[in-house]
């Protein structure tokens, strides 16, 4: 150790002209050389977080880093080492090279090798002759479509998408009510095909799905169609590449498709909610593979759905969705007429003679939304006008009325009832710029007896 300079460490690699250049200088100094060309040196470099080689690091007596410099600059090195003159024969400065730990072709493998120990999930070794994709099916881990095999390297890369610790418990996952950690969500997000930047949305969705208000257990167990729908709001939607425009509810966008799927796989694999076991849906529907979209912002005449439910910024709203019914209205040019169309179609949710028992989401498309914007109708106005139009005369809806056995109990004849309970109708905005079509998404048994929509902020 040199007086006053502490212990010096130099991180180098062979394939770096600057490292080769400074080698004679390092040989003159009392400095420990860490080479990225051997495993121990590479691991040390990984843990030191080296970006550039050569890096010169000063440690205090306790071994803690005091400061570091990178590349070669005679002036800097002389000041850092308190040795002068230094490297007279070298040019005055040369930039360094990228550290091996930052090599894109190595980074995932190194992360698995050097920080894999943070993962606690059971390792499953696949047999040599086993096809890895077939193996995922055979173990019952998929929704019927192929999944990405969740290797350590992939799961560690996925965990880069969140600041949360892998062992942090996100929620108790129904139906088995087991502790679901950030790591388990990441494993399932890998399988679903997510990118790391999608993970915070998946974590928020898992948290929301596992609340008693959302009642994921009941949603699985019911014979009704429903599965969780995720509507994403806030700047994160665009940042992670979600689709809120053309074909927003359809196929083709990775973020939409994989985020919704990751929630379903988490419930299936961690919670144990499998079709035919706890999931008793009579028919089900394809939205149970994945159903996730973002609200469109540039054409939205209103605040976001999440903001209207008290959560500003990045947020996800979960809804127990049981299918989509399209609404055609290509002729209305004023909000009064269009609203009457919406009300007429909303009346049929679940059954035209049933009231209050089912929630719904009305997804207003851009061409329909423009009519409200031009007329100056805010969200509250639309809700109020719809509520007024969606009053049901009990006499028309009691059992037997209209020659239909299904209906309300006889004592409700003569009573006027709302189609939707308070807060049971949500209004969202999405879709492509062309098409005078909107969508009604049917819910499940509403409120305390079933599921309530849940909106939560998306963290990091």
């Amino acid at each position, binding site marked *: 150790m040199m007086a006053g300079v502490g212990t010096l460490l130099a991180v180098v690699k062979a394939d770096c002209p600057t490292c080769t250049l400074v080698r004679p200088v390092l040989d003159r100094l009392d400095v420990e050389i860490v080479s990225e060309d051997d495993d121990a040196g590479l691991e040390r470099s990984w843990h030191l977080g080296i970006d550039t080689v050569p890096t010169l690091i000063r440690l205090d007596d306790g071994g803690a880093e005091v400061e570091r410099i990178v590349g070669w600059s005679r002036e800097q090195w002389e000041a850092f080492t308190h040795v002068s003159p230094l490297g007279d024969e070298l040019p005055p400065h040369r930039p360094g090279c990228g550290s091996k730990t930052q090599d894109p*072709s190595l980074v*995932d*493998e190194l992360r*698995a090798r050097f920080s894999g120990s943070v*993962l606690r*999930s*059971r*390792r*499953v*070794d*696949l047999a040599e002759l086993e096809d*890895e994709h077939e*193996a*995922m099916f055979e173990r019952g*881990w998929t929704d019927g479509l192929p999944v990405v*095999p*969740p*290797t*350590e*390297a*992939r*799961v560690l890369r996925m965990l880069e998408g969140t600041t949360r610790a892998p062992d942090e418990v996100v929620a108790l*996952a129904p*139906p*088995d009510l*087991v502790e*679901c950690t950030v790591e*388990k969500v990441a*494993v*399932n997000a890998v*399988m679903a095909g997510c990118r790391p930047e999608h993970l915070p949305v998946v974590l928020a969705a898992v948290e929301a799905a596992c609340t008693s208000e959302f*009642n994921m*257990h*009941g949603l699985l*167990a*019911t*014979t009704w169609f429903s599965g969780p729908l995720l509507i994403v709001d806030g700047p994160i939607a665009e940042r992670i590449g979600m689709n809120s425009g053309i074909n927003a509810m359809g196929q083709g966008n990775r973020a939409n498709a994989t985020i919704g799927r990751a929630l379903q*796989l988490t419930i299936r*694999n*961690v*919670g*144990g909610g499998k079709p035919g076991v706890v999931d008793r849906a009579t028919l089900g529907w394809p939205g149970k593979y994945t159903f996730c979209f973002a609200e469109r912002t540039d054409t939205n005449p209103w605040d976001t759905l999440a903001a209207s439910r008290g959560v500003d910024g990045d947020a996800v709203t979960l809804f127990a969705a049981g299918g989509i019914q399209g609404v055609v209205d290509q002729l209305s040019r004023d909000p009064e007429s269009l609203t009457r169309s919406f009300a007429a179609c909303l009346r049929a949710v679940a059954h035209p003679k049933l009231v209050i028992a089912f929630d719904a989401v009305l997804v207003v498309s851009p061409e329909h939304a423009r009519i409200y914007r031009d007329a100056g109708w805010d969200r509250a106005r639309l809700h109020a006008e719809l509520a007024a139009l969606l009053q049901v005369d009990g006499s028309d809806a009691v059992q037997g009325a209209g020659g239909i056995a299904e209906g309300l109990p006889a004592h409700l004849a003569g009573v006027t009832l709302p189609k939707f309970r308070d807060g049971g109708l949500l209004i969202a905005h999405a879709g492509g710029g062309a098409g005078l079509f909107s969508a009604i998404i049917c819910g499940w*048994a509403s409120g*305390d*007896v*079933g599921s309530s929509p849940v909106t939560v902020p998306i963290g990091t």
Partner: protein
Amino acid sequence: MTTTRTVLDPTSELVPAGIPKVERPATIDGLRVGLLDITKPRGNVFLDRLQQLLEERGARVERFAKPTFTKPAPADLRYEISTKCDVVIEALAD
């Protein structure tokens, strides 16, 4: 490069405990039989008839109901049933 030959278990890793089944009673005469109504429509009609048939055979019947069929039975209710009954029949009617 990375190998995909080892993967991480995506499940809860709950090892099945292998709970042995309770032996079937030889007779229901004198047994305390719980009937759990999950509150689906007309489940009670079925259970009423079942209660009648069980009582004809000498069972003592206790009736219970879940607050809502959409949610699991509350822990307190499950405990109450376990203290009051020898066997229980759950009506999954629709």
